[in-house]
């Protein structure tokens, strides 16, 4: 393999070509060419219904694409199963909160560690006490996100902001190369938004993050590149300063909001 090519594929960690998704004739995602650089925080923004969540579902194979290809680290993952994508190191979160409500906060993180460390866990004859070996690691992660005091709480009983934080903690436990976060701050109060923004920035070190985000203070604050999606197609792409001046973007998206965000 030529070194130059190698270098290039190393730079771009995730790439889609002509990614398209049709739902019974309705085109939700239309020929999207997305290129996410390794080590960056990349935002995917756009009005409601633009197709952002659908793009996430395509990237993680929760939905099969109608057309187009997806490459992760130069490998074609278009035909992968969702669990395979996760095993490659791409871990997503969900727009609606995705915790295991009747497991404790500690157990939520441990389920992730369990997968990360053991791969598969079909040992139904072993005692769950074996899992206690992961408690320290799980507590360390909870410490990092500020949830240590809630380790024994049922995840379903957490306040909304903390649930979202727990999701990030669980994702973090997988030590993923790439994190896909779908509206991690949606519906949060100011303080929570700031906390989660700082947390994302902190955990993004040494990883690549692709996030859907409505809150412009978060996007402008921590994201390196922004892709604007409108009716399934890419409208603009570039750094915040550039994209925010794009007249089409102002017209289509920012013009309609005060720019300070809030759930759209």
């Amino acid at each position, binding site marked *: 393999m030529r070194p130059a090519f190698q270098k290039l594929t190393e730079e771009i960690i995730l790439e889609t070509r002509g990614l398209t998704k049709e739902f019974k004739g309705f085109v939700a995602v239309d020929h999207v060419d997305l290129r996410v650089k390794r080590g960056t925080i990349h935002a995917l923004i756009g009005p409601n219904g633009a197709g952002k969540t659908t793009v996430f579902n395509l990237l993680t194979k929760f939905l099969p694409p109608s057309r187009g290809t997806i490459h992760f680290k130069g490998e074609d993952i278009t035909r992968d199963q969702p669990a395979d994508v996760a095993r490659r190191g791409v871990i997503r979160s969900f727009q609606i909160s995705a915790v295991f409500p009747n497991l404790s906060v500690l157990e939520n993180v441990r389920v992730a560690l369990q997968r990360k460390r053991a791969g598969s866990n*079909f040992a139904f004859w072993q005692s769950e006490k074996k899992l206690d070996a992961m408690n320290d690691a799980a507590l360390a992660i909870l410490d990092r996100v500020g949830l240590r005091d809630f380790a*024994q709480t049922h995840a379903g009983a957490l306040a*909304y902001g903390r649930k979202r934080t727990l999701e990030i903690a669980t994702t973090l436990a997988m030590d993923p190369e790439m994190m896909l976060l779908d509206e991690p701050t949606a519906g949060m109060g100011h303080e929570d938004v700031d906390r989660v923004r700082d947390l994302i920035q902190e955990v993004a070190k040494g990883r690549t993050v692709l996030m859907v985000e409505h809150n412009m203070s978060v996007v402008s604050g921590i994201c390196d590149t922004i892709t604007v999606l409108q009716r399934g197609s890419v409208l603009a792409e570039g750094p915040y300063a550039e994209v925010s001046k794009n007249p089409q973007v102002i017209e289509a998206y920012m013009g309609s909001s005060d720019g300070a965000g809030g759930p759209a």
Partner: protein
Amino acid sequence: MANETPGLDQRDVAFDAKFFRYGFLAMMVFFIAVPFVNQAAGRDLIYLVFLMKVLCFGLFACAFNLLLGYGGLLSFGHAMFLGMAGYFSAHLAKVGLQFDQVTLFKVSIPLSVHLPPFSTELAILVSTAATGVLGLLVGLLAIRRQGIYFAMITLALAQMIFFYCLQAPFTGGEDGIQSVPRGKLLGMIDLTNNTAMYYFVLAVFTFGFLLIYRTVHSPFGQVLKAIKENEPRAISLGYQTERYKLLAFVLSATLAGLAGATKAIVFQLASLTDVHWSMSGEVVLMTLLGGMGTIFGPVAGSFVIMAMENYLSNLGAWVTITQGIVFVICVLAFRRGIVGELEALLRRRLTFRQFLFEVFAFRHHKRARDKKRG
């Protein structure tokens, strides 16, 4: 954030362990003691045959609960495992394996096998294993579907098994397989003695029960719970969830098979009743009544349902109606089932009066709803 104060929202591992320890102790003491109490009383206060029925159906319901209560999978065809295992073990214990050819899809392959009747323990073991294989085949077909579709596929396959059993020569059609010999356990203990048979059934039940407890509280069980709670999230963490669900299905089918195989030996009979769809419904009833997702619930459910069938049998058709009424009351007021409500009561250290108030004021329903919205 009012609901974040330590209390009910907290995981209380110590309570769970204590509840299991004392519950298990009480259950074992009860079951072990009955024959002694009967003897001391000089008459049968509780019939051993009745208790053997409770134990067999209890294990069946526990196996079903492993799938529903801990895996979130509602099978509506579990009778096929109970019933088929019964036919297998009855046939093996009575006739053995005797055939000259195997006919599959109208193609006959000459294959001569002549094995004499199996010993009791071997008949049970082989039929349990065979039911596990059946569970694997059914599971492979059903597990890819979710919710109601999963239930429908299991029901459809169970109906196919039912009609097969109705037609196949080896099941004896409407008559079933009768006068199955109980035999001797390990060639030594005569199982025609009811007390010996009873303790053997108790041992089988205890093995199955503890295996289920261990499965639920294993690394595998932890993943299974996570899948039940939020399957997409489990997938996004890299779990191949279908494999976990399939293993749970096979385990459940195998243990249901163990219950069915044992039951056929106890009652010396394998019949269409055990493969009928109403049996698939009855096990749902037992599990919900006793407490879905609780370890003791299905045993309690089996006890209550069997007691109603046995002691109210002179009511005739009214038994079914009584069961229906009990079921409705249970679903409306004791949503968590007998054991589920008891556990909640103990966990919260409520007095009995507070408990009744809670239940009948439907307060926990409201709380559960609020929590969901949370």
